[in-house]
């Protein structure tokens, strides 16, 4: 996938330089123009080949990415309803409505709150798990596989398992808490606990992903640095982590941060399977709002406006990464 992207870019670059180089060459000296003619022909042939090779990727990108995106932008400015015959341009009325819609603000706030719990939770747990596995000697691949399992599992199916575990009367969670004398609780029906519980499930599902990436990052830290640190008098443990491990994991951590933030913003399946946004909108999140507006109330225009806000949110994460965080990370 990435390989393709890189080759595609290389080809585009090549095609672009070829094209920009051509007029310059033609506008230059007239004298060697004759001599250059075959070269120009060859360059044109190369450019043609490049575009031919690019075409499939361009078509797919246009069809699957750019057109839908443009359609959403267009729909967001209309009052279109799914299946309706009429459509009218209403400018930014959808966004004005959004601004005063308490459900939207609730969804936005919940999404941010969910991300604020899941992102540090999954990164922290992933890092701890990676460090433990890396420092251990036995059963390493078992732990790696076991902890990575939730990432690969279908979350809808896993959500149902969680639903049983969290069941107020016969659930495993309450039974275990009962051992410590904690009274049973209806976790998913309590406004105060529903979102945090979903966040715990999110962390459980995501931290394996962070762990695998951290493991790869840890392997690439030269062992000699730790040995140098041992001789330099670095006391080990925390101090060693602060001096070597954490800074050298910087690029990996940044990548994980962006990926897990994006994935946290996209939370939908657990909400859909477990709470449907309730109780009283306490687990209403952006994607779930988009889904209900678009496919339950059929307010396509309004859902499109919501989608645009969502896209802006994701873009903001990428932008923060590009402008602020990347400058503070050391790339070897």
């Amino acid at each position: 996938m990435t390989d393709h992207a890189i080759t595609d870019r290389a080809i585009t670059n090549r095609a672009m330089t070829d094209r920009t180089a051509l007029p310059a060459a033609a506008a230059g000296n007239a004298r060697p123009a004759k001599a250059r003619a075959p070269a120009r022909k060859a360059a044109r042939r190369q450019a043609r080949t490049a575009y031919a090779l690019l075409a499939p990727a361009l078509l797919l990108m246009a069809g699957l990415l750019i057109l839908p995106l443009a359609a959403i932008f267009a729909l967001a400015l209309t009052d279109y309803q799914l299946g309706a015959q009429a459509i009218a341009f209403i400018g930014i009325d959808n966004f004005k409505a959004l601004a005063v819609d308490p459900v939207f603000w609730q969804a936005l706030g919940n999404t941010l709150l969910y991300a604020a719990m899941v992102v540090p939770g999954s990164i922290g747990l992933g890092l701890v798990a990676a460090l433990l596995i890396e420092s251990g000697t036995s059963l390493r691949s078992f732990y790696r596989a076991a902890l990575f399992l939730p990432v690969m599992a279908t979350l809808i199916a896993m959500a149902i398992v969680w639903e049983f575990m969290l069941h107020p009367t016969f659930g495993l969670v309450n039974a275990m808490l009962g051992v410590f004398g904690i009274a049973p609780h209806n976790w998913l029906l309590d406004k105060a606990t529903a979102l945090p519980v979903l966040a715990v499930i999110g962390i459980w599902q995501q931290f394996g992903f962070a762990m695998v990436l951290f493991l790869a990052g840890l392997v690439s830290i030269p062992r000699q640095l730790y040995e140098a640190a041992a001789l330099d008098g670095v006391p080990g443990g925390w101090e060693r982590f602060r001096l070597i491990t954490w800074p050298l994991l910087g690029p990996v951590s940044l990548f994980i941060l962006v990926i897990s933030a994006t994935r946290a913003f996209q939370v939908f399946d657990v909400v859909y399977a477990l709470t449907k946004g309730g109780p009283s909108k306490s687990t209403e999140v952006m994607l779930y709002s988009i889904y209900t507006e678009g496919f339950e109330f059929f307010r396509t225009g309004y859902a499109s406006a919501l989608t645009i806000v969502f896209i802006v949110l994701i873009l903001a994460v990428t932008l923060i990464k590009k402008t602020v965080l990347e400058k503070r990370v050391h790339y070897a």
Partner: protein
Amino acid sequence: MAAIEARDLIKSFRGTSVLKGVSLNIADGEFVSLVGPSGCGKTTLLRILAGLELQDAGEVSIAGRVVDDLEPKARDVAMVFQSYALYPHLTVAENIAVPLVMRRLTTAGRLPVLGGLMPHVRRARKGIAGEVATVARTLEIEHLLDRKPGQLSGGQRQRVAVARAMVREPKAFLMDEPLSNLDAKLRTQMRAEISQLHRRLGATFVYVTHDQAEAMTMSDRIAVMMGGELLQFGTPDEIYAEPVDIRVAEFIGSPRINVLEARSDGQGAASAGPIAFSLANAKPQGEVVRVAFRPEAAELAAPDTGLAGRVEHTENFGSDLFVHVRAEGAAAPVIVRSRPQGRRAQIGDHVGIKVAPDRLMAFGGDHKRLAAVAA
């Protein structure tokens, strides 16, 4: 400054024996090279001295104290790694300061913001900065202090690594092939610089290398290791002129020593063609004895004198001309040093080789040196 003593060190990795009982006494302020082919255990020995590896048996003491129970940082030795092992995200100044920061500041004092608020920490940091600057001046890397290791050349990184080792004035410096990543010219220059540094600091240096030229030019004494054993420990002159083992003789010296196979006659005499000698202790008849001599111990002569052969190849170094002669009964060409001036031997010439009798060395089937007199 400290003497280092290793006693009967044994180490194996997963059943592979790497050190088979190595003992070594390094005097205070001495420059000792551990030299040998790759896999001979020299790096493992150094790492055991540093405390990065634990021996299976045996004892290490530094400055008269057994350090086997001490962590690397408590042994007060500094190490320069082959890969330099600089912290890539810290500037040169920060890299050099790490050993001092770790030793002088408390955990709280090392915290980025909080530490700066404490007056005694600020004072300590100022002192550290001064010492870093002094060391940087000594090694002529002051202009690099604000750079990151990634922006430095190999030679500059090497100096930074030495500076980081120097800054806390350790009892001993352990160096693991520090020059092997540099180009040939820089290597020669750094060789001289490290020797000078050793003279100036007067500290004990233990230097691991596979390059016999580095060992010969820099060391007070050389420890030649092979197959997990210490074959010989002595001054460069001793190692070169009086090797006790044929593997030492073959490893040290460039071009390599000439070795001819001889057979014992059972009466205490042996000969390889025209080269005959008597052994102090008679060997059974037919036992293989090897006789060796350095290229400069031989000279070319008329075709009918000494060892006869045909010139196969010549190497002209400007100062010396090494003539490779395919001689009768010798497995490898015999190398003879001659002068480039005057008449040179041409490839294909038939020549004789005369060997200075007092420069002949005999070695037994067990690689060990035999007492022998040329006849």
